C-alpha cells in the first residue's frame, strides 16, 4: 500500500520534521509520495524530490494552500487519497500536522493514530498515552490509516540522494471558511528546539524573562537551543513556542540541561527521552533529579554563570 506524506514547510524550505516522517513511512514499507501543498512553493517541491526514498512529489501550488488552512488542505488530501488509493496518510506531529490530519481522517471516516513512536507491523503501532506514563500498542481497523509521527522517535532519512518526479495537482479546494490574518514568528539564530543537539531550558526558578540571558550565554557556547517549562511561559518570561512538555514540544537532544525546573510529569513527558539530562535546582528533593544523569543542587544564579565561564 502506498503512503502519502504531508510535507512540513514554509513555502520556501522543507522542514526537517518531514524527514523523520519519511523514516516512519519507510518502516511501514511501500511506495511513498510527498505532498507539497502551499503557495509559491516550487522550491520546496524541488527539495522534496531530493529526499531519499520518495517516489513522487505532488505539488499543489495555490493561494488557497498558502497558510496551510485545514479547511482547504484537508479536502485536497482526502480527494488525493480517494483518487490514488493511498493506504496511509502521514504527517509530522507538529502543530501543522496536528491541526490538519484529524480533519482529513474525519473526511475519510477513519480514526487517527496520533504521535506514533514505532511501527510494529502494517497496521499496528506504538504511541505514548497519559503524558508518556504508558506506551500503548494500537491496531488500526481502518482501510486507510491516518497517522501523525513523533519526530524524535524516528531517525531522519537523508535530505538528498533521491530523484523523485514532480507532478502538479491542479484541483483547488477553497472552502472560504477561514483567512490568515497575521503571525508573530519568533526569530532566532539558534537551532530549532525539536532538532537541536543540546537544549538548555529554564523554569519558574529563573524569576523573570531578563534572566533567560544567563541561559542564552550558555547556549551560545554550546550551540544549544533554549527551552522553557509551562510555568515560565505562563508567567510571561518567554514565548509559547519555547514550551517543552506533554502539551508543548517533544524533544530528545543529546544533552538537556534543566535549570530551575521542578520536573512535573507534564514537563518530563517532553524531554525524558533525551540522551543525557542535567538538572540544576536548589531543592534537592525536586523530582527532576530522579531523571537526571547529573544533578547539581545549587542556586542557579551562581551555578549558571559559573557553568558558562567553565565551558
Amino acid at each position, binding site marked *: 500500500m502506498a503512503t502519502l506524506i504531508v510535507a512540513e514547510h514554509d513555502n520556501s524550505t522543507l522542514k526537517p520534521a518531514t524527514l523523520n516522517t519519511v523514516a516512519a513511512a519507510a518502516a511501514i514499507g511501500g511506495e511513498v509520495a510527498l505532498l507539497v501543498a502551499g503557495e509559491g512553493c516550487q522550491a520546496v517541491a524541488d527539495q522534496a524530490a531530493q529526499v531519499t526514498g520518495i517516489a513522487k512529489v505532488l505539488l499543489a501550488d495555490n493561494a488557497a494552500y498558502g497558510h496551510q488552512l*485545514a*479547511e482547504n488542505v*484537508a479536502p485536497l488530501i482526502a480527494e488525493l487519497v480517494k483518487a490514488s488509493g493511498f493506504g496511509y496518510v502521514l504527517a509530522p506531529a507538529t502543530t*501543522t500536522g*496536528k491541526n490538519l490530519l*484529524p*480533519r482529513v*481522517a*474525519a473526511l475519510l*471516516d*477513519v*480514526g*487517527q493514530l*496520533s*504521535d506514533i513512536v514505532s511501527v510494529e507491523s502494517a497496521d499496528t503501532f506504538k504511541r*505514548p*498515552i*497519559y*503524558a*508518556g*506514563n*504508558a*506506551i500503548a500498542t*494500537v491496531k488500526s*481497523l481502518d482501510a486507510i490509516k491516518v497517522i501523525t509521527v513523533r519526530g524524535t522517535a524516528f531517525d531522519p532519512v537523508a535530505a538528498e540522494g533521491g530523484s523523485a518526479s514532480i507532478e502538479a495537482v491542479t484541483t483547488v479546494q477553497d*472552502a*472560504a*471558511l*477561514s*483567512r*490568515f*490574518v497575521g*503571525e*508573530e*514568528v*519568533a526569530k532566532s539564530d539558534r537551532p530549532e528546539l525539536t532538532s537541536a543537539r*543540546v537544549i538548555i531550558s529554564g523554569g519558574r526558578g529563573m524569576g523573570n524573562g531578563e534572566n533567560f540571558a544567563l541561559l542564552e550565554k550558555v547556549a551560545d557556547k*554550546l550551540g544549544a537551543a533554549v527551552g522553557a517549562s509551562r510555568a515560565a511561559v505562563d508567567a510571561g518570561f518567554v514565548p*509559547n*513556542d519555547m514550551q517543552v512538555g506533554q*502539551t508543548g*514540544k517533544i524533544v530528545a537532544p*543529546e*544533552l538537556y540541561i534543566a535549570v530551575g525546573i521542578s520536573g512535573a510529569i507534564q514537563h518530563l513527558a517532553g524531554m*525524558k527521552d533525551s*540522551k*543525557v*539530562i*542535567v538538572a540544576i535546582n536548589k531543592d*534537592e528533593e525536586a523530582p527532576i*533529579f530522579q531523571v537526571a*544523569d*547529573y*544533578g*547539581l543542587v545549587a542556586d542557579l544564579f551562581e*551555578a549558571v554563570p*559559573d*557553568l558558562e565561564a*567553565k*565551558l
Partner: protein
Amino acid sequence: MKVLVTVKRVLDYNVKVRVKADRSDVDLANVKMALNPFCEIAVEEAVRLKEAGVATEVIVVSIGPKAVQEQIRTALALGADRGIHIETDTMPESLSVAKLLAKVVADEHPGLVILGKQAIDSDNNQTGQMLAALTGLSQGTFASEVKVDGDEVLVTREVDGGLQTLGLKLPAIVTTDLRLNEPRYASLPNIMKAKKKPLDVKSPADLGVELRAHIELLGVEPPAERQGGIKVGSVAELVEKLKSEAKVI
C-alpha cells in the same frame, strides 16, 4: 449566540498513572478523576463570552458512562447554563465523540463550539478538528485568544513557530491552549445552584449515531525507566563529567 462546550472526564493531572500487571490497560481503579484541564479552560472561555454579552447561553456536553455527570455538574458550577450527557458504556474514541457532537451541533445550532485541544489521558488532540470536518465548519485550534467580531471570530493560535491569527467564519470550532485564560474556582453557592440546572441524558441511538471501533488497544507497557544518575558537587565536576564521561560537550 449559543456556545457549546465539551468536557471530558479524565484522571486528575497530578496523578501518575500505572500500567496494570496484566498490561491490558492502565490502572484507573480508585484514581482521582477530574475535568480535563483544557476543557476547564474551554468552560471558562464560554462563561466569559456570556459575561461579556457575546454568548446568550452556554451548553455543556460530556460523553461517557454515568460518572461523567460529575464533570458536567462541575462545568455548571463554573457558569454553564445547562448540560447534555450522552451516555455510553465506555469512553468512545475521538471520531465517535466527534460524530455524536456533530449531531448536537445540528440540533442546537451554536455559534461557537469550544473544546479542549487535547485530552490528557489519550493525548489524541483530534476531536475538535474531526468535529469541524463533520460539520463543515471552520476550525481554530490551540487558541490563546478568541475575539468574536461580527460574523467572524479572530482566533490567535499557539503554533510551533510562535503565534498565528486566523479569521474564521461563524459558526466555528475552537480548541483551547493553556494561555487562553485562567479558569476560576467554583464557589460553594454556585456548586449548590448547579445541582438544580437542567441536565439532559441521551443515548447515541437517540442521536441516530452507531458507534464503530476504528482503533483497537492491544496492550500497554510502562515506558523505559531512566536509570537514576548521580549528584555532582560542583560546576567544575559537572563540566568534567559531561566532557569525559558522557562525552556530550
